[in-house]
């Protein structure tokens, strides 16, 4: 009995370290991808200096950010200002615990896995609000207010679209949802829900064309205007990890998770398929960001309340009726 | 436009007179001598006649500072230069409530020349920083100041030019 507890503790420790490490690695990969893809979209080479094709640039950037001074504005609320980046970091690490990368590669499979993720990731709003309020900067506060309004609004269609899938699987367990897609992936069964989820996830992660909280041409940099060094990079890490989380959820719920044509990597092929799908979605998000202009705030809200929520509700109703039949 | 009879009539009511000048030499079609009393009525007339204010500025000369108002029209070739010589008391009414564009021009003239426009809504420094009210950078120093005659077209010359300008002027209108 004692060894079992010890074993479990060790397992937890290792997985937490791995998850945190993954958040950093993910930021490196995404930072590189974003800069390289945006560069090619804009017909320029992008990163080329450090390492072959600038692969090591992000490492250097990370070191630089660590070395930077942490500046706290004079009239800022020091506690809130310092705590906000940490708080934004925590809720993006926790969801990774329940995400099933492959049939076996998963830290924990909760019965309420999906609810756990959604509950935790809403905490991110709090961090942004703290950062905006704590900075004592009007632009930051603008960004924070926009972010809160936007994230809370878009959580509704997001949840409704996910609920449609849950009605079909009858389980909140992430592993269970993936297993239910053995025959057909749900984005074929639930195309409306998939579309709504993708649009809402852009808003949830504050990515263009819904990047109003950090709209640099209006609000300089929104809620992280006053942050420097690691404070700023924690927000960036959180943003990229957040992207990974929403794309993972999309992969699990709509794209069949780790299902895929068997690859010659044995047990790893599931995980490889999962990462291909998740990163494919993230590349899609990058593509959209560097193509479209930004929407206006009232347009964004109108779109949510007047189009997305009614559609999501109708979709949910139709699903419920069809499942019952 | 400025050559029509009705326009000339309205000007006569204000006891103002338009003088045609040679466009090829001066770049404007007509000039008019304004006074502080007639300025606002003249501006209203110009607004009714669908002119817009190209610019207004000032030239420092002795004995008085000259204010220059240039008006032009969007739909015809007509450029009118209004001149206003400041009285000894230096009082000029604002036209910023008639031509809102002159608001900033008048503030700029206040910055550079220190001329105060009566009833202007906000004569704070626009281009110069606050607290530079005494700078008046475009006022000439004593030794560089020229008299009005020295910086005006010589009358004899201008008269000859005027007659020459007549045909070209009428063809344009």
């Amino acid at each position: 009995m004692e060894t079992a507890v010890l074993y479990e503790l060790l397992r937890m420790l290792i997985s937490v370290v791995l998850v945190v490490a993954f958040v950093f690695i993910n930021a490196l990969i995404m930072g590189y991808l974003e800069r390289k893809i945006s560069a090619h979209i804009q017909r320029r080479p992008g990163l080329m200096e450090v390492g072959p094709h600038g692969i090591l640039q992000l490492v250097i950037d990370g070191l630089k950010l660590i070395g930077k001074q942490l500046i706290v504005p004079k009239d800022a609320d020091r506690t809130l200002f310092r705590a906000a980046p940490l708080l934004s970091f925590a809720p993006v690490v926790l969801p990774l615990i329940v995400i099933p990368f492959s049939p076996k590669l998963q830290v924990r499979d909760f019965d309420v896995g999906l609810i756990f993720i959604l509950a935790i990731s809403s905490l991110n709003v709090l961090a942004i609000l703290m950062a905006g309020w704590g900075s004592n900067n009007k632009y930051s506060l603008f960004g924070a207010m926009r972010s809160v309004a936007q994230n809370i609004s878009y959580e509704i269609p997001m949840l409704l679209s996910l609920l449609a899938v849950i009605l079909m699987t009858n389980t909140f367990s992430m592993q269970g949802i993936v297993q239910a897609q053995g025959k057909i992936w749900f984005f074929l069964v639930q195309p409306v829900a998939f579309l709504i989820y993708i649009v809402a996830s852009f808003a949830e992660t504050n990515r263009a064309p819904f990047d109003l909280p950090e709209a640099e041409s209006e609000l300089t940099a929104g809620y992280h205007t006053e942050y420097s060094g690691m404070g700023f990079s924690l927000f960036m890490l959180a943003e990229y990890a957040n992207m990974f989380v929403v794309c993972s959820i999309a992969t699990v719920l709509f794209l069949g998770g780790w299902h895929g044509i068997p690859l010659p990597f044995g047990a790893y092929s599931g995980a490889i398929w999962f990462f291909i799908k998740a990163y494919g979605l993230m590349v899609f998000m990058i593509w959209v960001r560097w193509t479209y202009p930004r929407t206006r705030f009232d347009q964004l809200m109108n779109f949510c309340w007047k189009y997305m929520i009614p559609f999501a509700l109708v979709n949910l109703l139709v699903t419920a009726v069809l499942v019952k039949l | 436009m400025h050559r029509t009879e009705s326009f000339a009539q309205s000007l006569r009511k204000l006891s103002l007179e338009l003088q045609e000048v040679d466009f090829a030499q001066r770049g404007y079609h007509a000039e008019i001598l304004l006074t502080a009393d007639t300025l606002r009525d003249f501006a209203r007339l110009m607004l009714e006649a669908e002119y817009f204010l190209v610019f207004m500025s000032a030239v420092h000369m002795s004995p008085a500072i000259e204010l220059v108002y240039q008006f032009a029209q969007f739909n015809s070739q007509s450029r009118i230069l209004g001149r206003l010589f400041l009285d000894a008391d230096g009082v000029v009414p604002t036209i910023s409530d008639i031509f809102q564009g002159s608001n900033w021009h008048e503030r700029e003239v206040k910055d550079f020349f220190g001329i105060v426009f009566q009833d202007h809504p906000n004569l704070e420094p626009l281009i110069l920083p606050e607290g530079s009210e005494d700078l008046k950078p475009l006022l000439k120093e004593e030794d560089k100041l020229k008299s009005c005659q020295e910086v005006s077209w010589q009358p004899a010359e201008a008269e000859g030019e005027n007659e020459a300008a007549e045909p070209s002027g009428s063809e344009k209108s």
Partner: protein
Amino acid sequence: MPELTKISQPHRFFLNMGPQHPSTHGVLRVLLEMDGEYIIEPQPVLGYGHRMQEKLAECRTCTAFMPNTARMDYAAALPYNHGYAALIERMAGIEVPPRAEYIRVITSELNRIASHLLWFGALLLDLGAFTPILYSFDDREQILDILEDITGSRLTYCYFRVGGVSKDIDDKFVERTRAFIKRLRQRFDIFEKLVTGNVIFINRVKGVGIIDADMCRRYGATGPVARGSGIPYDVRKNQPYSVYSEFDFDIPVGENGDSLDRYMVRMREMEQSLRIIEQALDKLPEGPYRGKIPKKIKLPAGDCCFSVEAARGELTYYLVGDGSDVPYRLKIRVPSYSNLSVLPELCRGMLLSDLVAAMGSLDLVIPEIDR
């Protein structure tokens, strides 16, 4: 700021937009009284890039002031060169050879296109689209390369001289310009597909920042701003200078005077500029590129003005001479100054995001306003 020292209602607050702000394009500061995201009262604060060019003009000979003209509107410096050179020529009665006039027109129009391409990218950047600016800069770079070859500089040109231009154009220039015209015509399709048809873009600019014809008249707004409001006013047509009367070109106008109309006007203006350049290249006469001018240019006593159509509207130089070679007084009427003065009336009650879109569509160059 003076008009705004008191907040009229307790929940309102001030927002300082600028002097360092990504979408004020330079060092414009707009002091905003805000009610949430709504602007109650915007007040531009100028002068951060002020150099007192008008005083500088009084301190040197009239020909020595030529480089300064390019330092005002650095995005389209050649029309500024053009206006000043033509002003001195008008005052001193100097004849310009026809070839020089043609070269002036060609280079000015190239510069106008470069300026509009810069504006195109900057407006989209203001609206949050990062990519178009790099596409438009690709084309702008071509113009800068072409102009660099003959003028010697890439941005602040001092190419025109009193009586002509400083250097003749050669066959290489003509060839490259023709190639560029062909290239840009194809690029318009890309811009059209990438931007003009985009629903987010249309929603951001349509009906935003409406300036009507009456407002243009009261504020003296000219250039694409006035044309967007349906006023077909263009100094090149209304009061033809140089050799513009010899070319066949249209003045695009808008209907509603919103940001979208101003956008469309500028996009179509680039096509018209291409037409002018094409015709000018076809008709380009042989001959000297610089006329005979006296060693010392004496400005007669009297005042004189010259208006040209700069990239942003009507540019008028007003010069008072005193018989010497130094101007007694030079007033420079810059288009952006009047165009920006519309802002308080235009943006009252707007959302902050719309202010950015409206200001972007006015195409402001701040050093030009501050002079």
